[in-house]
């Protein structure tokens, strides 16, 4: 008796059904935007719950990162490593390889590039035209090795790449710690000596004499490396046969196998390429910003931010450039904003909301009459 009354009262209800058609082009970005707004709202709630002022915090983030040309340049400096780690994640995620190890690959790339200067592989007096290309090659190579390892273990032994890349992150940190402390230390501190000028990526400020507008701007050549890499990755993914194979494996591995695509080999190649991109990011960071090998500023979480950015950009290499700038702003503001945990917390909430919002892309939410069933 009571039950039948209940049924009649609950006239309308929410019904979920799998989405069979492809949603219109405007729908996914709108869902992502909604997820970010929700994340900022939830973050704001938490900030005010602990006694902070969310609007002030957000306004501060915006001012501290886009307020003038100087801080905008610093924002781009922060965005540069993120572009490369996000590209690294995007190409692996495209094949549904969960490379959580961009952090370690980035660190190893930084180590490789530093070794060129500190070992030294290139003699100290060499010109920039020798230093920079060799450092790029070394950074890319070391990053690629750090991506190849989990790729090979996955392909050959079916070792879970999430766990192996996580472990390799820590191994990379201890590896760099060892070198900066035991081998390349400067006066017992946990850092190497500063690189000679020829091993620095050129900065806008270097041209301040010729173009006064560039004075004091820290944006460096790594940005160009990042943009070139993004364009190359875009062509590989969307315009090459290899990219087609990668996308096919990611979307439907069974179909790919029937079509004769070699999944094992692609696992190794894609992980190595992913590592190479992150390694290039590490090279750009030591040669463009830090100018020495030191653990803390290199292992600053760019690999993890890259995961969020890749996801937010829906793995599109060109979109990654712009999303990276937004996250560069968030990280830059985090240096001055008090309390300093806000940017990381917001990053976390954004990522969770984004992943959860994919639900709306896979399911259609409909409100239907209860009696229909």
């Amino acid at each position, binding site marked *: 008796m009571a039950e039948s009354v209940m049924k009649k009262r609950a006239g309308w209800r929410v019904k979920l059904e799998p989405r069979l058609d492809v949603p219109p082009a405007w729908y996914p970005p709108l869902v992502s935007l909604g997820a970010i707004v929700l994340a900022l709202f939830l973050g704001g709630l938490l900030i005010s719950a602990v006694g902070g002022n969310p609007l002030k915090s957000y306004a501060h983030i915006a001012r501290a990162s886009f307020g003038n040309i100087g801080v905008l340049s610093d924002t781009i400096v922060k965005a540069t490593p993120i572009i490369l780690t996000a590209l690294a994640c995007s190409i692996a995620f495209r094949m549904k390889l969960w490379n959580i190890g961009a952090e370690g690959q980035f660190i190893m790339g930084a180590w490789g590039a530093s070794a060129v200067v500190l070992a030294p592989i290139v003699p100290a007096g060499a010109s920039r035209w020798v230093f920079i290309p060799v450092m790029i090659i070394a950074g890319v190579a070391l990053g690629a090795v750090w991506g190849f390892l989990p790729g090979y273990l996955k392909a050959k032994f079916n070792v879970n790449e999430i766990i192996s890349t996580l*472990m390799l992150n820590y191994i990379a940190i201890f590896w760099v710690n060892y070198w900066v402390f035991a081998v390349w230390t400067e006066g017992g501190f946990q850092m190497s000596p500063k690189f000679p000028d020829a091993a620095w990526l050129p900065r806008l400020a270097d041209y301040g004499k010729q173009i006064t507008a560039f004075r004091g701007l820290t944006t460096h050549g790594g940005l160009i490396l990042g943009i070139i890499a993004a364009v190359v990755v875009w062509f590989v993914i969307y315009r090459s046969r290899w990219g087609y194979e990668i996308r096919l494996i990611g979307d439907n591995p069974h179909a790919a196998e029937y079509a004769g695509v070699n999944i094992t080999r692609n696992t190794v190649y894609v992980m190595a390429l992913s590592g190479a991109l992150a390694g290039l990011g590490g090279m750009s960071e030591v040669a463009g910003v830090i100018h020495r090998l030191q653990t803390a500023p290199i292992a600053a979480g760019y690999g993890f931010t890259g995961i969020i950015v890749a996801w937010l950009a829906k793995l599109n290499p060109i979109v990654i450039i712009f999303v990276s700038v937004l996250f560069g702003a968030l990280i830059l503001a985090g240096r001055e904003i008090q309390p300093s945990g806000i940017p990381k917390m917001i990053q976390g909430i954004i990522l*969770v909301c984004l992943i959860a919002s994919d639900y709306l892309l896979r399911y259609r939410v409909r409100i239907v009459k209860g009696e229909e069933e």
Partner: protein
Amino acid sequence: MISELLSATVLIGILASGIRLATPYLYAAIGETFGQKSGVLNLGVEGQMLLGSFAAFYVAFNTGSLWLGLLAAILVGAAMGLAMAYVTVNLRAQQGISGIGFYLFGLGMSELLFQILMGTVETAQGFPKVYIPGLSDIPGIGEIFFSQNVLVYGAFLLVPLSSFVLNKTTLGLKIRAVGENPDAADSLGVSVARIRYFTIILGGALSGIAGASLSIALLNVFQQNMTSGLGFIAVALVYFGGWKPLGVLWGALLFSMVNSLQLWIQVLGIPIPSDIAVMMPYVLTILVLIASVSRVRSPSALSKPFERES
């Protein structure tokens, strides 16, 4: 220099602190084992630990009650678990990536709370040592195993207890069924969602205790990012241990003993590059994964969202 390491006092010291340091690994990794057995990969352990660690310290510091601190850590961990469960079970999110989101959230949120509510690093009186009558008097053994604090004993008791629950009870059977073949479990009337909610919240609560064990039992201080990767190692330990609590125990002891050894090497001022030593357990974890993949199978439905076929 090396001979200093081999004296009886130092050896006992290394083993005793090795046992003590295994505590956070055990709580976190056994919690994770429950989650993975039911098919859910929770990569947010590190974040849950950090928030639990802060909650325990803050509450214990202000109320003077360690047990209230522990309770706070359990509640905070469980709340994080609840959020994780909603995202993975109801919204069927990709678990590896959303876990990283929960990690970053816990990392930032614990830092934020620390700065707003405390500001400076304080130390507190942690759980005192409990000497087991009789056993603690045995030379050597007594100091290593029976002169620890209550959270350490709890962690080691958790190993047989969780093994029993997973292997010998109906609940354990349901958890394993849901992790191996959720469709079959579902058709037999087991609620996949309810079991997964249970294991993820339990895992969160245990991660909270793991965090508390750092801040109010082992180090007796809260610092930003004080777990420094411990939670991620806990996830790896589950693979290392082949999804068995006993296997997890060996892995936890391996990591904690190496950490302990490295701490003593620093204390004694022995010039051995400790970074290379600390690296070894991570290398070994990968090697164990390679060796065990052919022998030990992961739960079939691990990290796959469940969807009832209609």
